[in-house]
């Protein structure tokens, strides 16, 4: 490759390097980097899970599976971390899939297509490392499937054999089934109550796949903490490397608050900058489960307040 031609201040003058034009075009189009974040599409995937596509060219340009954003719906909203479910570099949009469960997500869900989020920052955290993986079992639980899907998709696109195991409480909560099927070499859908797919937990399906002789380079598990804990316990028995995606309480997402700290292999790690992916065999899940409850009462109160508020508005 010929040396890059630059001027005195290092501005790339090589027209084949398109980065500069891209950024400038986006800034021109959006009249400033942050005056955007418009909701382009919104769709309910099940009674409590929503898919939202948002205009965010700078984030879409950089996003990789496994990374997250922090957003605020309104000027006085909390900062909420959500993992990026999909991105489209061409249209400059990202997709988020989230469960409407706290005051913050209720507020995000109150925005309709055409409205704008107050703040959206990212992509944060490290991308999931899929390099060199040839055969992987991706395990998703509940809304965690939304985050597992782009990783499974990336693995599939790079030619890896992808087995997917997804679990839900019951049939009406199932999301992204078709999307998973289309990129999986093997697909298992589990429900706790047996109302759809097979009855049982994801660990049962995973264990039967392993017992059937499947040798995975890695298991990637994303879902509720308790699910990731038991997936890790299961794979530990078989000595299969397991990556989990942690989603603890955080404020800034850039390493400043320390609220997202976890114990991993006896060391303190910050999920926002050191993760969110960690070796599931090293994560202290019991501690993470306890820390996750820190504001439970507060959140419950806030959720009730928010629900009442929206109920009132709806009337």
């Amino acid at each position, binding site marked *: 490759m010929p040396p890059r031609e630059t001027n005195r201040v290092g501005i790339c003058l090589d027209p084949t390097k398109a980065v500069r034009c891209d950024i400038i075009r986006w800034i021109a189009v959006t009249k400033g980097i942050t005056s955007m974040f418009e909701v382009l599409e919104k769709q309910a995937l099940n009674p409590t899970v929503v898919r939202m596509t948002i205009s965010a060219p700078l984030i879409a340009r950089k996003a990789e599976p496994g990374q997250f954003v922090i957003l605020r719906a309104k000027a006085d909203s909390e900062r909420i971390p959500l993992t990026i479910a999909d991105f489209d570099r061409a249209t400059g949009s990202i997709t988020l899939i989230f469960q409407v469960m706290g005051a913050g997500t209720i507020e995000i869900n109150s925005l309709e297509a055409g409205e704008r989020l107050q703040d959206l*920052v990212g992509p944060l955290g490290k991308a999931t490392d899929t390099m060199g993986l040839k055969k992987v079992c991706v395990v998703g639980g509940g809304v965690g499937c939304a985050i597992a899907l782009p990783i499974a998709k990336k693995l599939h696109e790079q030619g890896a054999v992808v087995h997917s195991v997804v679990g839900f409480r019951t049939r009406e909560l199932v999301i992204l089934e078709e999307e998973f099927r289309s990129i999986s070499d093997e697909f298992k859908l589990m429900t706790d109550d047996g109302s759809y797919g097979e009855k049982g937990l994801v660990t049962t399906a995973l264990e039967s796949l392993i017992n059937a002789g499947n040798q995975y380079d890695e298991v990637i598990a994303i879902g509720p903490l308790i699910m990731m804990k038991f997936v890790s316990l299961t794979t530990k028995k078989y000595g299969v490397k397991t990556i989990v995606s942690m989603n603890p309480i955080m404020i800034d997402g850039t390493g*400043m608050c320390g609220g997202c700290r976890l114990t991993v292999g006896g060391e303190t790690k910050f999920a926002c900058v050191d993760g969110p992916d960690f070796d599931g065999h090293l994560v202290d899940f019991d501690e993470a489960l306890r*820390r996750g409850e820190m504001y439970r009462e507060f959140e419950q109160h806030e959720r009730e307040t928010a629900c009442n508020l929206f109920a009132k508005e709806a009337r």
Partner: protein
Amino acid sequence: MPERNMSLQKTPMPTQPAEVRNHNFEEVTLGYTWKMAASEAKRCLDCKNHPCVNACPVGIDIPGFIQRVANEDMDGAYEVLNRSTALPAICGRVCPQETQCEGMCVRKAKGDSVGIGRLERFVADWHREHSDVQPQPSVPNGHKVAVIGAGPSGLTCAGDLAKIGYKVTVFEALHVAGGVLVYGIPEFRLPKDIVRKEIDGLKTLGVEIQTDVVIGRTLTVDELFEMGYEAVFIGSGAGLPRFMSIPGESLKGVYSANEYLTRINLMKAYLPGSRTPIQRSHAVAVVGGGNVAMDAARCAKRLGAERVYIVYRRGMEELPARLEEIEHAQEEGVIFRTLVNPAAVLGDEKGWVTSIKCVEMGLGEPDASGRRRPIEIEGSEFTLDVDTVIMAIGTQPNPLIHRTTEGLDTDRHGCIITNGEDGLTSRPHVYAGGDTVTGAATVILAMGAGKHAASAIHKEIMGSEG
């Protein structure tokens, strides 16, 4: 020449009574009146060597502005301040004057120094509230500079460059500009309205602030150059909190001071009806002895904690906090347990903090910092019953930028290495200053670094234009 005021004492600062203010978040000190300011200004001898100016990291012409206050020319005084500092209302409130300008004041030979900080604050406040003289944007010189981080160093650098015609864009990771001025320092010490107005002043000068952009993630330093910025100033601060690595630090109720203060200040948990979760504590131990520790302790008191301890491993004399903050904290009922070091945080079966186990310390020989080294006294363990522990033992620079910028050298603490005063890093056209270079320090030192870097950037760009 107005008549000198030879009183040995500083004109006292009107202050909210301690037992009132420790239940509210309104500003503790109320500021001088016009009369008080004019009278205090007359205590300045306008001495020949003006040692105060040399002790000011941004080199304010201190006797110059004070003489104008003495002559009751407040616009003129503001004009003098404005030449050297873009944020006088902030400096007047948060600078450690006793170790800088006021520490060198000749009036200290006998009695108190001149109340330089209080006068600076008065002039800035008066100007903000009464004057309609607005800063004017300069004629653009056609050059673009990017600043990373809208904290004290970045804003100062941006302001100085904008004043001489540069098009400056400041990129800020959070949703609001101000850095530690908005997420760290509490409302009762530095009202956010004042920060906002000083930043509005910069915007009037033409500084553009882009919030919600994390350099190192959303954009990289290299991309900033590709976007046409000719120099980059990194003022990303030291945001990464340290913990002690003692047992129990992951219990519920243990906060980093950053998290605690961010929830209260940036996310407004101090406002009644706020939706930001924060623990309503009964008894709190704040570990550390700096300004951040004082801020956290005083916030905890205001949020209703009955007992608040400062736990610090050295003695009262070694507390690194500003003198005024220590005095205010004491007046407000914060209990100082100095020469005490935490050994473990203890919790109940549900994982909530119940107490902190501490050990008493004695002082040994001076260590590398010149301060006497604290040594554990054997068998002196005791516990303090608390439900919250706040770790305020310092912060390190955030690694995001240097991890994503090739050729940017850092030391073993993660601080960016610069060539000294100019702030030039190991990367051409990339400058850095403030806590990201020095590790956690003060607002004014960061401002000084921003100022020096601005002048070095100007010299470089003008030099190369030749």
